[in-house]
């Protein structure tokens, strides 16, 4: 049978506020265990939370950027459960009055626009982390992450394939990054997601039974988990079985998910209004203040790249899907480089190096001005494209002025016609057969001869000049 997949996602994003959600501790990643906490975020008896207003600001900003309605009278609730990484034994979250509701995100699926509903965005605190000791069979708790502010963005079940879900996640990530709500550092876990997936026979209105998948730590893992899950459910239905509603744990190493708990074992979190905090009352003025701080979002920027710089739609999408990348692009163009070559370098070699090194666009070690200069050197003919790749590697290894690097690495292109002509003549003398082939109309021969000259020049001769001189010589021969 043919099935349609239905996916809803719950994305947790760490907010980039300076301090934690309920205390004055710095909101920074890492640090020695238990050095970034205080009596409040470690839930010492008698301590009380005080809501960091910036958390509300950031959440409203995320809500406005995803077309949500902002709740005028919100509250916070306690979600009660026992776990050693949760020192109060409850998480302060939002239950029935989330800060933002009923929004949407527009995504672009193969050129087709799709609107994905956002059910709600709520604020909550992160828990700590358990570290399992390999030697003594002991678990230790690190509370540094306790009280790190999070927003949970819950989508409607509007996604129809893992690929759509991936595009939605990328789009959401870029919105959060553009608005600077989150720094979206995947390695540091600042963006995590839970997946809800069901399938139904094509044409059926009613949703199938859904399974929730936890422990999905990257977008790549999310796509793999969804592909696995839709296949698993289809196999069950094909065999005449019934999909059980359950929560499953994704194991990215083994590429499988395993049951975590069934619907019957679902925890009762006994939500109730947090009595230690006062209601969150959001005025229209407050919302408007925040609306003013929302920058150009990826969709608008993409349109600008297509219209102003005549970049292909695809290039514009890739560039703008990361704010840091797009900022780098804009800055390099501002330095005088032509948009298309900047885009090509960013999307091509630079992205590849970033991927290989597991870096993010924000980690590019050299400046946009340095990239612009490198491109100028290519255009002036000072370096060849292949030499430029070596310069780029050098810029990643030890950022410096491209001109200096070209000199240091001896990559300057030979454009002296006399010197090149000498090489051309030498090659022609050694390859009479190629001359004959060229005369007989075999264009390939020219390529071979260019290659030979290039080889003798150790790759430094200007290919355009080689071409011109070779053609002149062949025509005369």
């Amino acid at each position, binding site marked *: 049978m043919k099935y349609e997949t239905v996916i809803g996602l719950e994305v947790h994003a760490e907010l980039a506020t300076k301090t934690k959600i309920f205390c004055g501790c710095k909101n920074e990643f890492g640090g020695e265990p238990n050095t970034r906490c205080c*009596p409040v975020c*470690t*839930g*010492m*008896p*008698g*301590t*009380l*939370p*005080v*809501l960091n207003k910036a958390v509300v600001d950031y959440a409203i900003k995320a809500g406005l950027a995803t077309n949500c309605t902002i709740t005028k009278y919100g509250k916070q609730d*306690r979600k*009660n459960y*026992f776990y*050693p990484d949760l*020192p*109060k*034994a*409850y998480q302060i979250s939002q239950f029935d009055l989330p800060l933002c509701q009923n929004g949407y995100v527009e995504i672009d699926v193969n050129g087709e626009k799709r609107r994905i509903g956002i059910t709600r965005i709520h604020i909550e605190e992160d828990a700590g982390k358990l570290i399992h000791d390999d030697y003594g069979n002991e678990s230790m*708790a690190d509370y540094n992450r306790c009280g790190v502010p999070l927003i949970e963005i819950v989508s409607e079940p509007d996604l129809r394939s893992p690929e759509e879900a991936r595009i939605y996640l990328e789009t959401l990530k870029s919105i959060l990054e553009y608005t600077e709500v989150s720094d979206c550092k995947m390695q540091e876990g600042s963006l995590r997601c839970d997946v809800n997936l069901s399938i139904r026979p094509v044409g059926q209105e009613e949703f199938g039974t859904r399974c929730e998948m936890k422990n999905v730590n990257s977008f790549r893992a999310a796509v793999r988990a969804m592909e696995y899950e839709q296949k698993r459910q289809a196999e069950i239905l094909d065999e005449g079985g019934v999909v059980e509603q359950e929560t499953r744990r994704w194991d990215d190493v083994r590429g499988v998910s395993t049951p975590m708990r069934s619907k019957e074992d679902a925890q*009762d979190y*006994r*939500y*109730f209004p947090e*009595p*230690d*905090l*006062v209601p969150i009352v959001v005025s229209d003025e407050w919302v408007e203040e925040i609306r003013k701080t929302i920058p150009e979002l990826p969709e608008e920027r993409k349109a600008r790249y297509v219209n102003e710089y005549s970049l292909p739609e695809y290039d514009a999408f890739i560039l703008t899907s990361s704010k840091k990348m797009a900022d780098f692009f804009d800055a390099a163009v501002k330095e005088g480089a032509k948009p298309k070559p900047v885009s090509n370098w960013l999307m091509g070699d630079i992205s590849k190096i970033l991927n290989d090194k597991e870096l993010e666009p924000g980690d590019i070690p050299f400046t946009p001005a340095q990239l612009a200069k490198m491109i100028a050197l290519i255009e002036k003919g000072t370096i060849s494209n292949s030499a430029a790749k070596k310069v780029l590697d050098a810029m990643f290894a030890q950022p410096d002025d491209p001109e200096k690097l070209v000199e240091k690495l001896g990559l300057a292109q030979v454009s002296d016609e006399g010197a090149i002509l000498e090489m051309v003549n030498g090659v022609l003398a050694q390859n009479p057969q190629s001359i004959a082939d060229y005369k007989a109309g075999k264009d390939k021969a020219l390529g071979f001869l260019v290659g030979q000259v290039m080889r003798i020049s150790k790759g430094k001769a200007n290919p355009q000049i080689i071409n011109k001189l070779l053609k002149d010589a062949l025509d005369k021969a």
Partner: protein
Amino acid sequence: MDIYQLTAHEIRDMIKEKKISSKEATQSALARIHAVEDKVESYVTVLEEEALAQAEAIDANIASGEAGALAGVPMALKDNMCTKGILTTCSSKMLYNFKPPYNATVTEKLLEAGTVLLGKVNMDEFAMGSSTETSHFKKTKNPYDITKVPGGSSGGSAACVAADEAYFSLGSDTGGSIRQPASLCGCVGMKPTYGSVSRYGLIAFASSLDQIGPLAKDVTDCAMVLNQIAGHDPKDSTSVNIQHPDFEKALTGDIKGLKIGVPKEYFGAGISGDVSAAVHAALDNMKAEGAQYTDMSLPLNEYALPAYYMISSAEASSNLARFDGVKYGFRAEKFDDLIDLYCQTRSEGFGAEVKRRIMIGTYALSSGYYDAYYKKAQQVRTMIMNDFTKAFETYDVLVTPASPTTAFGIGEKTSDPLQMYMADICTVSVNIGGLPAIVIPCGYDASGLPIGIQIIGKPFDEATVLNAAFALEKTITKVKPNL
């Protein structure tokens, strides 16, 4: 007269006038503790050396002219208020070894004011109880009759003040935990308006009801202490940011024209004849001072007790969940796995009453029961608050008994929780309404046990309540316990 018998404001003034030193006041209180603590058992921790050292340091400050408003006055704190590096047990096995890494805001404020901390006093475990009998450590006795309870949960606070073992003390009041023991021990106890004193560092029982307040020898002491502890605290979101008047200066004793409402529901079945008579006699005294009183009705108050037990137990079930044996306090010695660690630790670490409330509260918040219990109780709370708001359109204060009876016998009600819960019948609705209320002694029964009267005021109108109590106090002859 011995120094320890003096009131806190007398001590404050004498120290200021250099008639006595803080060290002398402290030594006298410590000597009194040595003399009667065997009988009263109000302290969990006595800080003898620390208090003397503190007193000496304050005496030095006074000599150099840098003394706080209550410089040198020795006092005791209920053992659920955090004191940095000093045991804070909530009278529970669960926290038998817990030394907080920080000071509660009230601790901080009183230390800044120059008071001397004599020690931490006993209470019902986690403030759950009305007799201080649920304490894991000891049973505090009523100084007026050591076969009777001091009331609770701030039984240690009330008993230590009544027995002159401290010049004043702080208690916490969730459903009557300051006022009921004040009534039973014949001292002055005040629960301020919810939000007027910071709860930061008070180990929570029921967050939406808990409020810290003074237990004192007289109304002036009460006003004087409230002056120091009231006020907005940025660390407590529920503390209200309003400027409070000087409560001590508000004590003019003039109550001419004061309109008193006397809710008839507080004089019905279960209220002893002695109590009812003493309260009415006190009302007549107030009338003689120029106030006027009228019988009136608070029809919804009878639902306050059940609503209170739902809300307070629900909040407690969540507030006490953090005591799991993982980070601090008691941990069971034997357990198989994580869940067993929780189960064993909490089974062994909590007493029966605490476990009962946690179970009631957990049940009330469970999905499927939430609407019928917790939500319903919150709706009742709103209705009771409206009842009060309406009453205060007509009356300046309301006057009721503080406890249905005088002090009852130790062990008399421990086997019947419902009987015990009825001990709070006169006080809970004030917490439900978030209102300020004071209790002062207004007489003694045939066996010499104190009878308390409660004066309830409008939100943040502590000044009127205190002044009414001050005027009444002048008409009452107080009797010290004979220890």
